[in-house]
């Protein structure tokens, strides 16, 4: 006779079967039986955060830096609503997560029970899919489906809501080996005809441009991308989500594009004649005003796993639905086998033009400044970590400077909330990154406003001894809000000044960490070196930076890519 397991046991067994090593969560009434089962085993290690938002960001950072599915566990009601920001963050950036949430017992659903919310309803618009398990016999297959849906096709968060009584009921456990769903087929049809068309366009290009996004990172396609771009000698730009997809130190890399992209990247994007978009979605922060983008003629090839990303904001000439790694490989094979060659002369001329644009030196800043320039801190961080750190960030000016000045040569090293733009993401995501990469060097570039949104996680870092290095670019302002107010709201700095700041050094110390305050430019490098020598300690570095520094270049909202505000 087969042994029957409780729903709670089954939940934990499923996680074990999926090879989950870490789960980030916070207990509560509806998940007590699951926590009881977690207690009885040691394969799945639970990381106790201090707020459910952080559980999601940590699972998210874990997933982004490891290419595994991140897992979070939260209780019903406020546990779920606290998690929503983190779920939406992962959804916007297509990060594979499985969220297990507790729910009130099935008989209490709809009765406005204690800690009851309509979890499936609240999370519906920000998950790839969600389930409410109403029958214990479907629990294991539902969790299997959740992992499958989260990690295939265009990845995304999947939530499984489990009522408390289901975790107590018993059934025979068997974990399915595979999933077959008639309504979900992440594999794609043959697209060789489209790929051939794309190869033709690429070979005929006179002013080509390769524009790549988070899809390259998600599909581990950096190698294929690098191979293709180097073979063709085409210029390449990455979106904020795509940084590290192509090595930033390669001379063919023209920098990030978009609202705070480089002059050369934005100009090349606007004036190219053949654009190869790979795993990117032409969003508003990337191409600005689509009408302005249309004002120049170009042919567009768009490779993406999600058909709905294609021709959504910009109409394309050659749509290719597929895994970017596979399509890039096919392109490489076709182009190498072709008798035709690229127009070397035209491409040389194009590079001349791009180099002229580069001479604008659009990222320059005052290196002789008597106050610390935030850009300089990021540059020094790059030097001290030899460009090999995992860098997470929060949202705002510091995020843009991190993206502009830390040259990412490898994928999955740059971890930030691109789509949703979630302040508070930096520190908890760094915890997940450190868990996934116990020997990795992890730096969190943040600001004094963002860091306070999840500052409680300093406690989690202490408990699990996570040696994250926090680079706090402290300008006493919500810098990006201040910048917009300066540019577009007549210098009226409405509510963007950060008053009553804590003493971050003492704050870090009170959590048992090391705190440093750095106020002079000449101390920056030394402080960073000292901090990174403390390999087992979290160091909170509070850099007092220039209050008036702005992020340049900038494409103002509603403007076109070539209409940048420059330094």
């Amino acid at each position: 006779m087969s042994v029957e397991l409780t729903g709670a046991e089954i939940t934990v067994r499923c996680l074990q079967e999926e090879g989950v090593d870490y789960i980030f969560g916070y207990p509560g009434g509806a998940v007590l039986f699951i926590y009881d089962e977690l207690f009885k085993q040691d394969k799945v290690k639970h990381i106790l955060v201090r707020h459910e938002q952080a559980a999601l960001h940590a699972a998210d950072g874990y997933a982004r830096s490891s290419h595994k599915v991140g897992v979070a566990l939260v209780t019903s009601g406020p546990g779920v609503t606290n998690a929503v920001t983190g779920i939406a963050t992962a959804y916007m950036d297509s990060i594979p997560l499985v969220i297990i949430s507790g729910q009130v017992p099935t008989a209490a659903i709809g009765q406005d029970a204690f800690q009851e919310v309509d979890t499936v309803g609240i999370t519906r618009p920000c998950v790839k899919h969600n389930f409410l398990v109403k029958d214990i016999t479907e629990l294991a297959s539902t969790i299997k489906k959740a992992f499958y849906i989260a990690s295939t096709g265009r990845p995304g968060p999947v939530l499984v809501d489990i009522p408390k009584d289901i975790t107590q009921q018993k059934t025979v456990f068997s974990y399915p080996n595979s999933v077959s769903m008639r309504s979900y087929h992440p594999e794609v049809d043959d697209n060789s005809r489209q790929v051939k068309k794309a190869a033709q366009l690429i070979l005929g290009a006179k002013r080509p441009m390769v524009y790549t996004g988070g899809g390259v990172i998600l599909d581990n396609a950096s190698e294929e991308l690098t191979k293709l771009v180097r073979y063709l000698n085409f210029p390449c730009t990455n979106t904020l989500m795509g940084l590290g997809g192509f090595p930033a130190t390669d001379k063919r890399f023209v920098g990030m594009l978009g609202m705070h992209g480089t002059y050369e990247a934005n100009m090349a994007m606007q004036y190219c004649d053949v654009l190869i978009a790979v795993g990117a979605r032409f969003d508003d922060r990337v191409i600005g005003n689509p009408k302005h983008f249309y004002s120049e003629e170009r042919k567009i090839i768009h490779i993406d796993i999600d058909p709905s990303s294609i021709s959504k904001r910009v109409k394309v000439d050659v749509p290719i639905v597929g895994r970017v790694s596979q399509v890039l490989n096919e392109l490489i094979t076709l182009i190498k086998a072709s008798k035709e060659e690229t127009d070397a002369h035209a491409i040389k001329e194009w590079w001349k033009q791009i180099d002229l644009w580069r001479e604008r030196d659009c990222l320059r800043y005052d290196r002789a400044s008597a106050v610390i320039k935030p850009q300089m801190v990021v540059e020094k961080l790059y030097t001290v970590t030899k460009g090999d750190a995992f860098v997470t960030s929060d949202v705002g000016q510091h995020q843009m400077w991190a993206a502009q000045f830390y040259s990412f040569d490898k994928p999955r090293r740059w971890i930030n909330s691109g789509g949703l733009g979630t302040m508070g993401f930096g520190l908890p995501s760094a915890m997940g990154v450190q868990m996934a990469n116990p020997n990795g060097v992890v730096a969190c570039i943040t600001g004094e406003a963002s860091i306070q949104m999840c500052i409680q996680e300093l406690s989690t870092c202490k408990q699990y001894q996570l040696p994250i290095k926090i680079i706090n670019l402290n300008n006493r302002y919500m810098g990006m809000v201040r910048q917009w107010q300066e540019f577009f709201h007549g210098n009226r700095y409405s509510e963007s000044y950060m008053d009553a700041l804590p003493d971050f050094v003492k704050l870090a110390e009170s959590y048992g960490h090391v705190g440093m305050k750095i106020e002079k430019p000449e101390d920056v490098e030394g402080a960073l070196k000292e901090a990174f020598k403390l390999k087992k300690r979290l160091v909170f570095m509070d850099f007092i930076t220039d209050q008036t520094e702005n992020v340049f270049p900038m494409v103002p909202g509603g403007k076109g890519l070539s209409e940048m505000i420059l330094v």
Partner: protein
Amino acid sequence: MENEAGALSRVAGLFSARGYNIESLSVAPTEDPTLSRMTLVTVGSDEVIEQITKQLNKLIEVVKIVDLSEGDHIERELMLVKIRAIGGDREEVKRLADIFRGNIIDVTDKSYTIELTGTSSKLDAFLDAIERNMILETIRTGASGLGRGERILKV
């Protein structure tokens, strides 16, 4: 689509979240009780319809989508309409119902309730033919459609 709780709200949620309009929507289980079939009428440019189709396809519970208006198709909508019918109007309303091949399915001394099936435009035409203040109540199901001839939507 899968005949599951919540599938309908995913479709409705998608339309409201992305700013698309639902003109009408009719849904019921099919001969296979695990599947529901929905006919949804919407309007938009070719680009918008393309996006709607792609977005609907992404919903996990949607099994298959066909744009009926891309080819020949049959569509029918059911309407029940209660009309004030007193004195000379009674004969007039009955005649009109006959012309539109409607059935009178409920009668009182002051009203007729008429059942009418057809394309949405036929139902509109019927309502236009009746004086506005005579219409006491209407309810419409929204269109249900199928492809003509050999065109079959089957899982």
